[in-house]
């Protein structure tokens, strides 16, 4: 991010969408799309992600508030199900540029550029109707980038692509965005893909922005259990806050189980007094199996219940204090090779990796 300059600024927005299943209201107090930045919009189905994106594209009537464009240049949108115009891939790109009143030579340069960039140069003369889902998506992205947009809105760009296709497309997208001043918003339900692209995250819940912030901040410090679950903080341990020595406190779960936590933290729990009901949130990759490597403090023994590996990472489910905690291991290495369901293991965590949330 170069300047922290807002390309698109949303203020006190209220948008209502009516459908057969009833009407839905989206309210956004303040949200900026920064030039040169990528904002991921996360949320469950029906949270208002697509409505927000469509509002930003000017496709929804605004009831209240405003969406300010602070830069010149087109706002481009790539829909979840892009539509190709009949004719060739090349024709599609030319049509996209037809509103831009470009000199012929300039248009040709742009078309060649995006054909090349999204790896569809070989498809230029193909009829768009014969493209596969992945190729169509690439065409839609190429069409959007041909406009040299100041704002780019992507609705589920990785939908219905296989893993390899997603990987390749996210790399191409990153490259297309890099070095430009385009402000990007990407709506997705796939956290992993969102993280590949985004530097900021907005979490939508029930038509409201539940949290908005830098990527690392939102991942490490979600402001509510619902946000925590959405951003992959899979372990939420209910307990009571207990004071400890110095900066160290603990979350009391039961007589056998406590979780260490640092107290000197900003956030929703800064004002919590001992005895307050809390959630101790731990990301799976921060929860360590076994002990004795100087990493963190043990929080007690658990029994391995499940072990799922995709060949790269293994997710281990461990029964602990009546909960099933999750932790990630690198597949095929160390413990991931030896640990089996039924094994007794020790869990540990660094106090600074435990995130407190008020409960109840």
């Amino acid at each position, binding site marked *: 991010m170069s300047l922290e300059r807002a390309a698109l600024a949303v203020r006190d927005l209220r948008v209502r969408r009516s459908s057969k299943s009833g009407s839905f209201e989206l309210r956004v107090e303040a949200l900026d799309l920064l030039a040169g930045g990528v904002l991921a919009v996360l949320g469950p189905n029906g949270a208002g992600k697509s409505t927000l994106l469509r509002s930003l594209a000017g*496709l929804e009537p605004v009831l209240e508030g405003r969406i300010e464009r602070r830069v010149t240049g*087109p706002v*481009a*949108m790539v829909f979840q*199900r*892009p539509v190709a*115009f009949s004719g060739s891939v090349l024709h599609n790109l030319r*049509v996209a540029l037809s*509103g831009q009143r470009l000199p012929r030579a300039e248009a040709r340069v742009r078309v060649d550029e995006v054909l090349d960039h999204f790896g569809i140069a070989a498809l230029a003369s193909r009829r768009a109707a014969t493209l596969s889902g992945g190729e169509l998506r690439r065409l839609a992205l190429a069409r959007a980038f041909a406009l040299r947009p100041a704002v780019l809105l992507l609705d589920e760009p990785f939908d219905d692509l296989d893993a390899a296709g997603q990987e390749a497309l996210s790399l191409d997208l990153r490259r297309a965005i890099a070095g430009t001043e385009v402000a990007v918003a990407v709506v997705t339900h796939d956290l992993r893909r969102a993280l590949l692209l985004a530097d900021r995250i907005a979490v939508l819940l029930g038509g409201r922005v539940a949290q908005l912030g830098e990527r690392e901040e939102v991942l490490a410090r979600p402001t509510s259990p619902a946000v925590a679950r959405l951003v992959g903080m899979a372990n939420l341990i209910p307990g009571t806050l207990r004071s400890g020595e110095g900066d160290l406190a603990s979350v009391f779960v039961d007589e056998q189980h406590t979780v260490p936590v640092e107290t000197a933290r900003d956030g929703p729990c800064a004002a919590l007094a001992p005895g307050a009901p809390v959630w101790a949130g731990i990301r799976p990759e921060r929860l360590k199996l076994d002990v004795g490597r100087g990493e963190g403090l043990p929080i007690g023994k658990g029994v391995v219940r499940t072990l799922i590996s995709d060949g790269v990472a293994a997710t281990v489910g461990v029964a602990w204090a009546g909960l099933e905690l999750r932790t990630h291991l690198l597949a095929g290495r160390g413990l991931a090779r030896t640990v089996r369901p039924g094994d007794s293991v020790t869990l540990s965590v660094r106090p600074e990796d435990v995130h407190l949330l008020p409960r109840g």
Partner: protein
Amino acid sequence: MTELRAGEVVEITLRTLAVCGTALAVALGAGLPLGIALGRRRFPGRGLFVSVVNSGMGAPPVVVGLVVSMLLFRSGPLGFLGLLYTPEAMIVAQVLIALPLVVGITLAAVGALDENWELEVRTLGIPPLRRLWLLLREIRLGLLAAVIAALGSILSEVGAVQAVGGNLDGETRVLTTSILMYTQMGRFEMALALGVVLVGLTLVLAGALTVVQQGGRR
């Protein structure tokens, strides 16, 4: 009595083409915009409008002829126009027959477009006239189907033009009405000659449009 009069065949054929061509042009001119508008816009009463169009697609031409005749009859509400038994009256009847076909088929073609198509062109910032051109391009197969259906229906139609035109020699006699007349008179060689011309016209015109339509499938 049994002679074949080439001059009369040519004259009737030319009149048929003039009447049907005019009716087709009017039906397309009014029907295409109407079909496109009905296909793209949502407004109260649209459903009723669409069902009227759909019923019109199956309306019996002879009844259309009856209604137009009653309207244009000397003592009818539009009798003062003096149009009954003129080519203009035939054009009116044919337009009423062809219009629902043009509107209905255009509407269906627009409706078959992906619902996101409109959003896609809007977000690409394509200017309105260019959008319309793109739309016509997208639905061109349907448009040609509308032209073929409309042309076929009015070229082969006999009941309505007989009722409002009266099959007057040298004035309102067209291919279908003259075939009917010569058949009833037992002058089968004339009826057959005119029939060959009518079938030939239908085949050539529909064939040419089909070639255009299928050539445009890309």
